[in-house]
């Protein structure tokens, strides 16, 4: 039976992994991810979760170990933040070429130096080229649910790619709020045990083969482009996963995007994760002031929902993108991709980048209101 509880985003992430019956967990502590791992370690040690917990000596090894485990046919999980994500990035990219459908929670945190442990999205966005599916959760319920959905998507035979689920450091990770913890039977119904593809790294059940030896350019190019195909396939798989999730659990977080009041909106705000929900919360005040604003909460950043974004923007007269990140010498990262998409789809709605909340600088409703009002003035 489902339980309602008030839990942090990190506990929700741990629950997501637990309900998904992960079999191997390898992780390395880093603020603000730590409590995810601590929770899982506790469950494993107490026998509440039948999994192996590998207390590796670095994030590079954490990702390496889950790749190994996944290749050997089990469902594997890890989590990290910031420096930890950068430290493992070689293996993050590796997991894609290895086609190991592991799931990783990223608790977004700013990068050093100077040291800063607070929320910023640049960490996860820096991995956007690697071929990982990216879910951005806007609240703790979504954190838990997205991890369960992420396994569905990642392990789908049409996809077979790893997936990340992002939650804002502290903003979600250490903020407790009501969450419905699903019934295990229902989750089992939604998510079947991991069935590896036609090869498994286990000489007891598979013939000898080698994976990963050198490919000449002509073969390599084909193999890499097949990853792009899998990414394209993921679009439908994600939609179906969200739909069935809704059917079984009655919860709808959106599929690629969750639109809020976009239908009649003159101004649409695009944002990721809890920042998007903060914008959503701000809507009420703005609407009360007679300003027609909507929010498009980008839930899936990879594959990037171009078509959906173009449609939403097309209806509006102005788009504001809030980026809790920055690509130096360029733009906000989400803003850049929204602009590119609109050019591609020949949508000429102007786009304003608002970079906010860097290094955990608090994003207040006033900041969002101000951004909207500035656009109106123009």
């Amino acid at each position, binding site marked *: 039976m489902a339980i309602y509880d*008030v839990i942090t985003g990190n506990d929700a992430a741990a629950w997501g992994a637990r309900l998904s019956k992960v079999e191997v967990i390898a992780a390395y502590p880093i603020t603000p991810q730590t409590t995810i791992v601590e929770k899982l370690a506790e469950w494993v040690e107490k026998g509440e979760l039948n999994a192996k917990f590998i207390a590796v000596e670095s994030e590079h090894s954490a990702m390496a170990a889950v790749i190994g485990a996944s290749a050997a046919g089990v469902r594997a999980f890890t989590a990290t933040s910031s420096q930890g994500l950068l430290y493992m990035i070689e293996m993050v990219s590796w997991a894609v070429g290895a086609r190991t459908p592991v799931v990783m929670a990223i608790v977004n945190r700013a990068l050093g130096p100077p040291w800063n*442990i607070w929320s910023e999205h640049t960490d996860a966005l820096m991995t956007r080229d690697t071929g990982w599916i990216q879910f951005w959760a806007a609240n703790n319920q979504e954190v838990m649910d997205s991890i369960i959905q992420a396994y569905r998507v990642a392990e789908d035979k049409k996809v077979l790619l790893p997936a990340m689920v992002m939650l804002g450091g502290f903003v979600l990770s*250490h903020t*407790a*709020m*009501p969450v419905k913890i699903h019934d295990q039977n229902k989750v089992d119904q939604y998510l079947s045990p991991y069935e590896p593809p036609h090869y498994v790294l286990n000489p007891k059940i598979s013939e000898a083969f080698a994976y990963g030896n050198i490919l000449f350019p002509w073969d390599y190019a084909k193999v890499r482009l097949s990853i792009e195909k899998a990414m394209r396939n993921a679009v439908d798989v994600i939609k179906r996963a969200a739909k069935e999730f809704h059917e079984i659990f009655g919860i709808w977080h959106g599929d690629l995007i969750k639109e809020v009041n976009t239908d009649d909106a003159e101004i649409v705000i695009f944002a990721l994760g809890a920042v998007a929900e*903060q914008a959503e*919360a701000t809507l009420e005040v703005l609407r009360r002031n007679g300003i027609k604003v909507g929010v498009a909460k980008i839930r899936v950043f990879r594959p990037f929902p171009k078509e959906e974004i173009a449609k939403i923007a097309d209806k509006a007269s102005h788009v504001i993108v809030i980026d809790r990140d920055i690509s130096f010498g360029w733009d906000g990262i989400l803003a850049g991709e929204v602009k590119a998409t609109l050019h591609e789809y020949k949508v000429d709605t102007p786009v304003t980048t608002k970079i906010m909340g860097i290094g955990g600088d*608090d994003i207040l409703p006033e900041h969002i209101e101000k951004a909207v009002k500035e656009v109106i003035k123009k």
Partner: protein
Amino acid sequence: MFIEVSWLGRGGQGAVTASRLLARALAKEGMWAQAIVFFGAERRGAPVFAYNRISDKPIKYHHFVYKADVMVVFEQTLLDLTDGYKRLKDDAMIIINYAGDITKSRLRMNTYKIAKVDATSIVLDLGLLVAGIPVINTAMVGAFARAMGMPSIDSIVTAILETWPGKIGELNAEAAKRAYNETEIIKK
């Protein structure tokens, strides 16, 4: 209903846990409650900030509380040290852990509503110390219930026992109950 609470403690005193306990207890009564924490680079002893937002419907805000309706203060000095008054609404309630005669405190008694409890003594009495530091958080949650009239002390006790099954839970529940009973509402 929309109430914003601010908790003021020190690393080791359990302010974060207190705000989470409160949220959990409120949820038992059908309320929607958020418990937020500002992590400084806390070593033990450094000031710690925690917050709650309480409502009867889901809350989508994700920022800190800047003007609280209620502030729970674990130690008087913290109010001065952290410029605590600036983060209070004009008619806010201060719930404070204080041992002596409150009128002798530095509290701005005229401006705010005040409730007080001698949580440290309760807790020392119960032997609730971790590494030498009296852990007054559950007591302060009890005081909150009394001062604000919600949630019920039963919900708090349930939440405490869920969080720490066994001996520790019982001690903490006891601390909450005693604080609930001993809290004085000085000014309403």
